[in-house]
């Protein structure tokens, strides 16, 4: 249920025709192909896809974080609050990173520097971007740690990362990201490396902080279940392309792309009887070295026809979406969209 006021919210992030090719030993990798989407202030965009579908490369390229040497080609535009990212100098980017856009990474075990205390790591961006004094930054750090649910924060600040559990470390990582009240938070698989029991806590924490601070959030995950209840809009990526994009409720009630359907069917359901076979997607995601024509999903698609192997389907507006959705909000890239509705019970 996209609240109607989002329409009025100003644009936060506008990505148009983003294409990224990376150098690798085996040649060019077409990591991201022609991806476009918009994100409004306060909205959450969930990006879903298998490993290697270009989610992380896309996320990192938004703030020009990919190593310059490995990027062979970068096309398209990324506009953040009215500023074109690729036109900024490295120095301007440094001012933007952390202050305007913050990132949370997948593995909290390696996302914190093992030889610096929590205090130093959290207060560093505070001192740099907000110009706080050391004392003020320390005070603010304790408040931040408190806010992300770290018990006994006054004591924890002087500890080192190895003294904290994985969930606690991810909370610290979130505290660092939130330190300067960014307008956009990019969470790159924030719960993948955590225990299942901690995952929900971290996701709830992120949602809560997002609502409080009215941040825009890019929530990247390979788990459709994670974004189902937390994202306003869901984008499904496959082989570097956006294959379906729709408001969360529309997506689950009227998914069009066979890949989205396959992803959805592969979520195990608690209501299934025992010993039900998991619905895996047959085959493997494609290598992204050569862009042969045709839909990248065609080899694994149960509905694939001749045309799917010959032509690359363009991104089109879903025709005759069900009543509730505004037609322009539902996009997909498939010649033969499925019309099945996913019988309601998205977590």
């Amino acid at each position: 249920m996209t609240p109607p006021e989002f329409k009025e919210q100003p644009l936060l992030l506008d990505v148009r025709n983003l294409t990224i090719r990376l150098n690798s030993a085996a040649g060019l990798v077409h990591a991201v192909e022609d991806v476009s989407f918009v994100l409004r202030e306060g909205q959450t965009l969930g990006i879903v896809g298998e490993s290697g579908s270009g989610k992380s490369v896309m996320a990192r390229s938004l703030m020009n974080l990919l190593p310059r040497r490995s990027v062979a080609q970068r096309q398209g535009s990324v506009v953040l609050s009215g500023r074109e990212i690729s036109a900024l100098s490295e120095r301007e980017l440094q001012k933007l990173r952390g202050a305007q856009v913050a990132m949370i990474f997948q593995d909290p075990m390696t996302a914190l520097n093992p030889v610096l205390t929590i205090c130093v790591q959290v207060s560093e961006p505070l001192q740099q971007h907000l110009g706080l004094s050391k004392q003020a930054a320390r005070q603010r750090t304790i408040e931040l740690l408190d806010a992300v649910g770290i018990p006994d924060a006054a004591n924890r600040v002087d500890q080192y990362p190895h003294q904290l559990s994985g969930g606690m470390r991810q909370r610290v990582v979130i505290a660092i990201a939130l330190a300067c009240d960014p307008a956009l938070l990019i969470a790159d698989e924030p719960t993948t490396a955590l225990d299942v029991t901690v995952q929900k806590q971290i996701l709830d924490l992120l949602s809560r902080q997002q609502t409080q601070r009215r941040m825009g959030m890019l929530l990247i995950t390979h788990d459709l279940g994670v974004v189902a209840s937390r994202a306003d809009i869901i984008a499904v990526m496959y082989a570097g392309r956006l294959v379906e994009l729709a408001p969360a409720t529309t997506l689950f009630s009227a998914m069009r792309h066979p890949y989205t359907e396959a992803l959805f069917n592969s979520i195990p359901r608690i209501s299934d009887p025992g010993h039900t076979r998991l619905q895996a997607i047959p085959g493997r995601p494609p290598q992204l070295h050569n862009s042969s024509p045709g839909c990248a999903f065609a080899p694994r698609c149960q509905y694939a026809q001749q045309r799917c192997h010959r032509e690359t389907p363009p991104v089109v507006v879903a025709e005759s979406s069900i009543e509730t959705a505004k037609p322009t909000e539902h996009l997909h890239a498939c010649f033969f969209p499925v019309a099945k509705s996913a019988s309601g019970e998205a977590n």
Partner: protein
Amino acid sequence: MPAKKHPKIESRAQNFARALQQVFGRGFGPGFWLAVFWLAIVAFCAMFADWLPLRDPLDPVIANRLDGPLSGSLLGADGLGRDIFSRLVHGARVSVVIGLTAVTIGMIVGGALGIIAGYFRGHFERALMAVLDVILAFPWLVLLLALVAFIGQSLFAISIAIGFLWIPAYARVARANTLSVVQREYVLAAKAMGASTTRILVREVLPNVILPLLAYGLVAMGLVIIVESALAFLGLSVEAPQPTWGGMISEGKRHLATAVHVALIPSVTMFLTVLSLNFVGDRLRSRFDVKESNL
């Protein structure tokens, strides 16, 4: 553990001590502390040689010539009747000073080059590694003789010459460690939070590279002491009357048939010192490795 009452706020020092203990574990074993004890003695001698109640190491007393240990003086006298114990204590100064300065020079110059090469990669790295490989491939003794002939035989000059020899080794260690550190997510995370390149190098990379460098430094110091004594043995270290361990061995070799102790005592002293350095360095290094895998 609810029994533990809610703790008062610990001081930063307490936290630091506890963190150290958690990372490194408790206790290094008696061998380690024995080695540390020996090194402490050597360091003490080097620092306070002038103020210790010793005989003049340069004063020849012909009557005592080639005296054995415990005959009049503690460790006997050498071929010119000079007190061996006193010469050992003063010789420690040369070994320690050269060991420290040479290793420091190698660590700072080599470490900085290695970190920069490992972080920026590209042409600079390739050029630097090529130059370092050439230095490594060059016979070190020949290079050292040339350097000493060129810049002289003062304590400082010899430290610089030996330190220069250590730059390639340090650069390689620093570069290798930097390469692995740079791949860690916290470097990317720092960049994503807007850290500048200098800040990343100083705050993220350096503290993670310095530990293995320091541990390697102890092992390197042992080798430096041997290199220095090799120079002294050839008569190319610090000028003659000043006692050095290598010089003492060199002088003692003339009396090997009649008075073994003249060469043996400095040899054993040096052996123990280098052994201790290696032992301590090795132990520390293995602890650091444990830490890496714990993360």
